[in-house]
């Protein structure tokens, strides 16, 4: 594990978020304070409507909190994700953040390789050859070497989700957020997805935050949290995570 693992890579400080007001007012997050560490896969569990997706959106810079801070470790210091401008935050997401969703959201017209290439070309102005080389290498690593030129309609659900993982990782993201990434997959494929994400954390020091309601995942995670009615609690900690 990288040495930086002693410092948290993402700190949440007293996050608050409510939706609606008056009779429809609903507290989604209340006083959520916790740290995420690089090189670890963290799991967030909790009942439906407990605020899991809301928390993920706030941590990843998609949804603003009503109060509190999100501090991300970047370039030797912490940056305040919700203290920067919209444009700065988009640039931050481009540099650092990858997403995996329940749906694969792959362009039907593009090959597996192109789904990744478009991110490099549009996001980093990478040259065609550079984008192709990096995308191929990424897909190879995800066990999709034979699937490069297939379109989504020719891929299985598990393969599609692995392409989506490749798209989230290929630009070199250090923070990976996954909202129910395995709920559309069978357990074997779901396990594979988790193992790939865990490998990314352990081998490349990425900070991985997975939301799921599937407790079968627990053995595959480094640390697990539980969210209920907007309150966060620690659920378990793997022996590996205790090393830090």
């Amino acid at each position: 594990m990288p040495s930086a693992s002693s410092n948290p890579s993402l700190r949440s400080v007293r996050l608050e978020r409510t939706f609606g007001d008056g009779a429809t007012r609903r507290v989604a997050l209340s006083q959520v304070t916790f740290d995420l560490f690089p090189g670890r896969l963290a799991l967030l569990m909790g009942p439906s409507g407990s605020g899991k997706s809301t928390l993920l959106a706030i941590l990843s810079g998609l949804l603003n909190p009503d109060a509190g801070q999100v501090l991300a470790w970047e370039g030797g210091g912490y940056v305040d994700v919700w203290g920067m401008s919209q444009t700065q935050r988009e640039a931050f997401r481009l540099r650092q953040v990858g997403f995996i969703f329940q749906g694969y959201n792959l362009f039907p017209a593009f090959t597996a390789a192109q789904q990744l290439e478009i991110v490099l070309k549009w996001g980093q102005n990478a040259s065609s050859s550079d984008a192709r080389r990096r995308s191929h290498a990424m897909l190879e690593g995800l066990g999709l070497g034979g699937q490069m030129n297939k379109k989504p309609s020719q891929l299985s659900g598990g393969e599609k989700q692995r392409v989506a993982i490749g798209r989230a990782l290929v630009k070199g993201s250090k923070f990976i957020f996954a909202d129910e990434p395995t709920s559309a997959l069978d357990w074997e494929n779901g396990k594979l997805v988790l193992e790939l994400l865990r490998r990314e954390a352990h081998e490349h020091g990425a900070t991985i935050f997975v939301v799921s309601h599937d407790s079968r995942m627990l053995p595959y995670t480094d640390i697990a949290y539980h969210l209920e009615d907007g309150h966060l609690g620690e659920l378990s900690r793997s022996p590996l995570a205790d090393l830090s």
Partner: protein
Amino acid sequence: MTYALQTLIHERSRYAAGVGAVLFSAVLIALQVGLLLGLFELTSIPVDHSSADLWVGGNHVESVDLGRPIPASYIGRLNKPGVQMPELYYLNFANFTKPSGGYSLCTVVGTGLTADHAGCPDVLTAEHRQLLTESMTVCVDQSDLGKLGLERVGDRGKVNGREVRLVGVVSGIKSLAAPWLLCSQTTARELLVAVNPTYSDHVTYLLARCDDPAHAKGIAKELAAEYPEMSVYTADEFSTKSRMFWLLRTKAGVALGYAALLGLLVGAVITAQTLYAATMASAKEFATLLALGIPRRKIYGLVMTQSFWIGLIGVTLAYPVVHLLGYVAEQAGGRVVIRWEVLLGAAVLTMGTSLLAGLVALRSVKNIEPMSLLR
């Protein structure tokens, strides 16, 4: 480029409506203009079927069929270096009495009758020209026989009350309203004098060829400046002027403009709708890219590129369709003038509307939010 085109090809059934709409409006515009140009080509037939370089008429002649008598003595004014032997040309509306009784409007066209004469209509054969030298004889176009109540060579009718005999039937000089009656200068003078004595020593036009047709424009300018009471045009100018006059006078251009506008509007709405729906269908993929921090303008660019390709493919497909429909129309007896200027104009207009449709469809991209992916 490749991403936009690749999407278009992969989801061709989705984009077909947009391409079809562009094709439709491009074809509509090109054919309408073509038909109108074909129609108004008929107004300049005397000019187009002669070989004169210079046309000299009275003051402010608006169209070749609206010439006013000018003194035949003006012919001396054309005695200039570079101008060949000028000649007299008669052209005037007249009243035609059908053999069976009943009236029709006609246009008397009296010209020199040797092949050397600049005014001699090129549709006349040597035989026709020979026959027309006989006084009070005329030739008319095949398509006008019915309008004049004539059936065959030898039939007789009256022009301004004077009897004429049909000695030949030609083709290629269809008329818009008043059939052209081709005859000799002598016959024309006699027919026109019957109602307008001025024509005893007046003509409608003076025609001449130039040694070098390229100089016609300069010579026409000089003559017009020298003699303000005459209009002097090159054949090309006069032809265009005649067509434009009737195009504008009849407001056909306005009708055309409206129809074209309607076609463009339909094309734009359908194209915009197609792009809008296509973008919405990919909203989740776009939202994912936005979540990853890809700038929104990249997606705008993709949609605009798609609208560009839809326009280009539509316009390209329109090209053979216009030619095919033009051919069909000609077979059915219509006249469609397909000019590259018109095709280019139609292409530019429809490409423009397609891009405009793309701009409208951008509104759908504006509303895509990555938050929508989190459940």
